[in-house]
């Protein structure tokens, strides 16, 4: 039976593990402005990135944006997922298609839409000015808020679909039993549905959090030139600075931080609900 994972395992080994190992090797090299890099085995790139207040700031922004997006997705995604899970089968397939619909549009195209909406002369500013509510255009684009809104719109479907799959597995009659025993819908949700949906909450949050930590197109396009998250910073080091070793070190720091926060988050949430 174990042989069944062989094809997928080989693919992962070839296309993921091998390039990652190469990237890790590069991260230990030394940068050379003329030779691209010099062979070395030294942790200097990691130490520099970790000690640098600039990259600490970039990592802070990245974590803030990723956490905010995950929480927002959870808050707006749970009701939608519950509604989707408890829907009649006829309309359900249509609702699922509508949920997935935003994913059919590429990130860049979607961001262009947000730019048209949020820009200085965009639809929102034009409307507010037309109605006489404001005189000067509001700065909506190129803000952290714009990035969060843009990313939430990208990742929300992942959260909704993951949650709804888990909620579907919670028998409906448990909610009815809770109601029979006198629980208000809110109490039934808090004490029955939510604890049983924890695996979905964890899975959806992990998925969304990882996507947000690694977001590239949306922060670049909606955050503007002054806003920096980790993925664009990694790109800058590789392409603009041609400093591959440092870029590789930044990429691994992003990977480790994302992994650590994901494991920590899942453990905390899991333990809390197991205890109940």
């Amino acid at each position, binding site marked *: 039976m174990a042989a069944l994972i062989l094809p997928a395992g080989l693919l992962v080994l070839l296309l993921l593990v091998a390039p990652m190992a190469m990237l890790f090797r590069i991260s230990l090299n030394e*940068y050379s*402005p*003329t*030779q*691209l890099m010099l062979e070395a085995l030294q942790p200097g790139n990691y130490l520099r990135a970790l000690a640098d207040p*600039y990259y600490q700031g970039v990592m802070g922004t990245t974590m803030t944006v990723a956490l905010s997006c995950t929480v927002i997705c959870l808050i707006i995604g749970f009701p939608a997922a519950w509604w989707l899970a408890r829907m009649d089968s006829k309309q359900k397939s249509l609702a699922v298609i509508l949920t997935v619909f935003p994913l059919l549009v590429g990130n860049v195209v979607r961001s262009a839409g947000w730019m048209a909406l949020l820009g*200085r*002369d965009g639809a929102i500013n034009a409307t507010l000015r037309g109605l006489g509510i404001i005189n000067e255009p509001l700065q909506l684009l190129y803000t952290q808020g714009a990035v969060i809104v843009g990313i939430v719109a990208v990742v929300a479907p992942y959260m909704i679909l993951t949650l709804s799959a888990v909620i579907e597995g919670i028998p409906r009659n448990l909610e009815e039993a809770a109601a029979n025993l006198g629980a208000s819908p809110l109490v039934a949700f808090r004490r029955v549905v939510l604890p049983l949906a924890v695996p979905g909450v964890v899975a959806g949050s992990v998925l969304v959090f990882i996507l947000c930590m690694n977001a590239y197109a949306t922060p*670049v*396009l909606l955050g*503007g*030139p*002054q806003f*920096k998250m980790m993925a664009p910073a990694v790109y*800058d080091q*590789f*392409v*603009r*600075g*041609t*400093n591959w070793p440092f870029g590789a070190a930044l990429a691994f720091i992003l990977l480790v931080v994302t992994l650590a926060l994901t494991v920590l988050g899942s453990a905390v949430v899991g333990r809390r609900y197991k205890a109940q």
Partner: protein
Amino acid sequence: MIGRRAMLGAALAAPALAHAQANEVIVGTWGGDYAALLASEIDAPIVRPLGLTPVQELGTPAARKTKLLAERGSRRGSMDVVCLGDADCHAMGELGLVEELTPDKVPNIAHVLPALRSPFTLPHIYSVRVMLTNPAVISPAPTSYADMWAERFRGRIGISDLLYASVMEVAALVGGGGESDYRPGFPKLRELKALGARVYSANETLAAGLKSGEVAATIMWLGRAYMWRRAGIPVQAHFPAEGATPYVSAAVVPKNARNKQAAFAYLNAMLDPRAAQGFGERMGYLPTTTLATLPAPLLAEIGVTAEQQAKLRRPDFGYTARNAAEILAFWEREFKA
């Protein structure tokens, strides 16, 4: 089982295959207009009649540089001609990865404008860095780079993020430094930031700013100004009194190119005067040789006078390569922060 006919066929095909490879010239280049113009203005009318078959390999300059570096140990490289910007060509030359170009290999090189000559680089087309204004918004126009630091430009200078190295060089000139010393530009950039200069993430957003009047002046390539005017963006170009700096779109031949003779023939064709007009009209770029002339109305828009040409500045690619990390760090952390 391999039959007699198949064997015969294979035997006949083998020399033909070898012949095809001998005539192929692999050209690593940008996509878009540039690749299309190479195909229509150079490949079809000039290179193919020589019996050569150009094959384009499209990609980013970063990918081409990486390939050159990665293949440096191998005997047979994957590209015969590699199109890159002037700074990248210089860097590849410094590393000893590309052939030195002389008139006996590429005869047309003898006609290249003296200001654009470089031992390892074939300068194909060029434009110069100038100041652009929206004349409806600001008047009088700046006459020197230093003028852009005046109080009347407060909050009205726009800068493309893609041109950060150019802007840092300009600031260095204004601050009393130069192409070989950007440091005096750092305090000038702090001044420019205090004057409310805005950074735009793409040339297109900068163009929109110029059109709406949000941006009164910027630093840009003359060829781009020509394209913008054609797109209905009202910009006027002004040559800086300090002298304009050229940007040369160039090409090199790797030392391990498989088909060097074909590559040299291709470079020679790139300088053929017949190809110049297409690149001028569609991209706003000038020919680099004295052989080619463009129609007067086009020259009026994208051209450089003899006097301006005499004042062209020379970038110090060695300095920018050695200090690339410091230059980018200042831009990202201080100017943009």
